């Protein structure tokens, strides 16, 4: 059975249609990424699945529950990292974990979870003394303390420096090895590529593409060939670079010319992604 199933989901805030009819399935044990720029509808979608918001239309099932009207077990089985949330500033890391552990019927060991999220050295530090990255790890720790089957991570690394981001990635990968289903939102392409088994790219409330990160970026891409001729730059775009290049070089050789500043490049993943989420219709 899939952990999450979404069909025709819609949500508006006044005149703003934040989510305009999206469909996707997430299998148990899968790490699924919702990727898109700010305002694409990622957080609205996740907060509907978490049970914070009511949908306007569509069918949604999360762990066999309708999150709008969940059974008593639902919140025992989900773990949540919100995009913005803080915790009691004057409690210690350990006290905070213990407070949350008490809300669940079958919590994990507090010390184990603190170890898992790499806060063992900060066990007795007050929350207000933690750095931004450490606070985010605390958020992850309390999301895991109830031993959930499904974990929601809403932009878990936004604002991190590169080292903190790598550390967070390691932790999220360890969730997969624990067998958790993970729904992750991000606006970083590399993060989705590094962590997710499958990715849905959202733009203006719609899914523009869905698939593995590899599928996403290996679609019929046009390769760019550039060179200079009589001081003028020439740019060719083609899906058959071998043939085009062969013809070009054959002609040049026949004329005894050099193709000045010849360059052949595939667009980067970043460019593919930007093309997908840009204002123009994707190619």
């Amino acid at each position, binding site marked *: 059975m899939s952990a999450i199933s979404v069909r025709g989901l819609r949500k508006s805030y006044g005149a703003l249609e934040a989510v305009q009819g999206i469909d996707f399935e997430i299998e148990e044990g899968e790490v699924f990424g919702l990727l898109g720029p700010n305002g694409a509808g990622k957080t609205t979608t996740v907060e509907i699945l978490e049970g914070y918001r009511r949908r306007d239309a569509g069918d949604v099932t999360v762990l066999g529950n309708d999150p709008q009207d969940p059974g008593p077990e639902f919140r025992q089985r989900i773990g*949540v990292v*919100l995009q913005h*949330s803080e915790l009691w500033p004057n409690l210690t890391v350990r*006290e905070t974990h213990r407070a949350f552990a*008490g809300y669940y019927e079958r919590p994990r060991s507090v010390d184990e979870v603190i170890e898992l999220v790499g806060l063992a050295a900060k066990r007795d530090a007050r929350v207000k003394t933690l750095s931004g990255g450490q606070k985010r790890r605390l958020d992850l720790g*309390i999301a895991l303390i109830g031993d959930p089957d499904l974990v929601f991570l809403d932009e878990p690394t936004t604002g991190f420096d590169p080292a903190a981001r790598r550390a967070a990635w390691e932790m999220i990968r360890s969730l997969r090895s624990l067998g958790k289903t993970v729904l992750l939102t991000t606006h970083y392409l590399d993060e989705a590529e590094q962590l997710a088994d499958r990715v849905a790219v959202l733009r203006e409330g719609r899914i523009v593409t869905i698939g593995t990160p590899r599928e996403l970026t290996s679609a019929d891409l046009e390769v760019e060939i550039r060179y200079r001729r009589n001081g003028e730059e020439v740019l060719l775009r083609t899906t058959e670079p071998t043939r085009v290049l062969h013809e070009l070089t054959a002609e040049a050789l026949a004329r005894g010319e050099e193709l000045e500043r010849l360059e052949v490049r595939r667009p980067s993943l970043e460019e593919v992604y930007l093309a997908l989420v840009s204002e123009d219709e994707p190619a």
Partner: protein
Amino acid sequence: MRLFVHELRNQLLVFWRSKEAAFFVFLFPLLLFLLLGSVYGGKIYGVPASEALLAGLLGYGCANTAFAGLAIQLVVRRELGILKRLRATPLSAPTYIAATLASTLTVFVVQTIALFVIGAILYSAPFPHAFGSLVLAIVIGAAVFSALGVAAASLIRSAEGSSAVVNFILLPMAFLTGSFGPTRHYPAFLRAIGDVLPLKYFIEIVNAVYLHRQALWTKGGALAVLAAWGATGLAVAALRFRWEPREG
């Protein structure tokens, strides 16, 4: 029930860990009692001044703890996203609210006991005679001011402004209703304002029960005014209370 006890312990831990809360909510009324008790001598309303002040500061303590303290606490927790985060756990909203009110009541009861102990030691004020009525009065007062505290929290937009807003209400109310000493020499219009405020009626009940050894039910009018304020607070809270921070 297990969740309620667990959350009550969490909330008390969070309360005592915050130095600002422990000082302004718990200690401040006690310090005022020490201060005013050493300033006022003789008699107020025909009873020793220290006893009248004790009753007034019990009233101030109630409004300070259940109205001001609770309102600030809730706004801060809402704006930090703590309330929103808790909604994703198995802790239900009714259990959370019950534990919050029980934690507030606990702090106020400990403070009241401390007031009587200080009164007995320093000013030889007697312990309450109509004990059952006083306990009931304390619970009613805490309930009414908690309802107003949750209502205030629902109307206050930002954590930064919350302390200023509630103290702008609390301190004038305490002065006008006789928490800090008798109001009979105040200008008539100030007394008229005091006459509509809930704290006046709570102090009136405490005075009757503690100073004049009357039973709680002899103060039907004052109880009715408190009930009206409590109902208003509940209505505003039910309509306007939010769990999520103002910005999404």
